[in-house]
């Protein structure tokens, strides 16, 4: 399945977990996770404007269920994030000594599939202009707002491209193209030669030899014919190994409104980074 990652290497340590959302009914205190197991539940669970925590004992976990200290009121949004999350942090004050842009935090992250990319491709859903990514405010009454966030596709050199409007979605091209290595490459190499360079564009993240012992992912920085210049490889690779486009870099930017939290620390989970994509078998 397509996933978000905070950084390379793309694996469990950098993976961003899915949210689980629930709506309180005034009586329910125990909720069953759908999108992850109980061991992946974050320490924090946001209930309305409050954050309850496992570490303080206000959230308890049993199997894939978690229990809150009191029943959320009817209609109240409960956000149960995972332990892996995109983390944005900034001040709500315009002038902080030593901080150039205290209200802003921008950072790159990755949308990719490195686990099943040999089995699936990811296409633009019908009615959409691309694989859609968007920060969504799942509790508009509390916490952060989607309008605090902007998204941008990354440039080929890894820098941020043009940011969309606050809260707006961005569209990414399909993740489906592939080729094979036409020659082997050594570890630490920064170029590879593929059979069909037209399958790729600079900025793509590619999986080399998916499913193999020397599998790895890297980023294409430039292309000349069938020669791809990539971030240095960790492994040596052999001719005919698969090269599959498996993801994109994107940038997220948080701009905290002035006095959004009254100058105090606040942690909010109600804004999620949402992805809409078609997954199709190869």
């Amino acid at each position, binding site marked *: 399945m397509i996933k978000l990652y905070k950084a390379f290497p793309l694996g469990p340590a950098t993976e961003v977990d899915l949210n689980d959302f629930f709506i309180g009914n005034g009586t329910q205190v125990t909720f069953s996770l759908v999108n992850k197991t109980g061991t992946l539940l974050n320490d924090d669970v946001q209930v309305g404007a409050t954050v309850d925590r496992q570490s303080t004992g206000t959230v308890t976990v049993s199997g894939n269920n978690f229990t809150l200290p009191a029943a959320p009121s009817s209609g109240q949004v409960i956000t149960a994030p995972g332990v892996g999350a*995109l983390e944005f942090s900034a001040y709500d004050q315009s002038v*902080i000594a030593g901080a150039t842009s205290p209200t802003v935090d921008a950072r790159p992250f990755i949308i990719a599939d490195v686990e099943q990319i040999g089995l699936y491709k990811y296409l633009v859903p019908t009615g959409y202009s691309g694989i859609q990514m968007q920060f969504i405010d799942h509790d508009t009454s509390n916490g952060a707002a989607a309008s605090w966030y902007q998204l941008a596709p990354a440039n080929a050199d890894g820098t941020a491209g043009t940011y969309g409007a606050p809260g707006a979605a961005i569209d990414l091209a399909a993740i489906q193209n592939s080729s094979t290595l036409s020659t082997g490459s050594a570890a630490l190499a920064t170029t590879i030669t593929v059979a069909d360079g037209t399958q790729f564009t600079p900025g793509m993240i590619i999986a080399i030899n998916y499913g193999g012992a020397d599998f790895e992912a890297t980023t294409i920085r430039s292309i000349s014919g069938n020669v791809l210049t990539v971030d240095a490889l960790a492994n040596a690779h052999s001719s005919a190994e698969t090269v599959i486009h498996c993801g994109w870099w994107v940038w997220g930017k948080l701009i905290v409104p002035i006095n959004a939290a009254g100058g105090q620390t606040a942690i909010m*989970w109600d804004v999620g980074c949402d992805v809409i994509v*078609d997954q199709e078998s190869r």
Partner: protein
Amino acid sequence: MATLTLSFSVRTTVRKRLNLSSSTSTGVRRRYSQSFTVQTGAMHYVAAASNSATDSGNTFFPTLIITPTDTYVTNSSTSPPGGTVYSYPYVKVDTNAVVGTCGLQDFHMELSLGTMGRFEAITQTSIGNKGDIITVAGLKALITYTGQGSSPTWQVLPNERRLRGCSHPQQRDPSCRW
């Protein structure tokens, strides 16, 4: 084919600033210094936020934020009058830059010690003429006006030597001045 709609976890953290004034009771004096680099060349103009050509007769609140790490530049034609050397940055409202026929009225400026992260009015001055200069003892200026016009520019000028700032007036020492 399956359409996936996935919501990934995002932690939004609003950080709390370091309260520099809280250290006095411990006897530890904290101070920071910040240099404003002075260059020659083009002026540093900051367009008024949230203004537009359609603004007319309304009060609005463009916020000019002078951040410590911004580079402010000046040139000889608009340097402080009389050769005055200011030990703090100042802001000049250039009404010539206003597009419109009616001009602006009722300028006033409220100043704050931005580094403290709280609003603290230091002075309030009415200005109405091009070239009027307001000194800014803090790092943030909130400028408001009523009247007609659009797109005024706020011109930020530096002092002509490097600036050293204090976190709080009570923490001044001889080497730390505004």
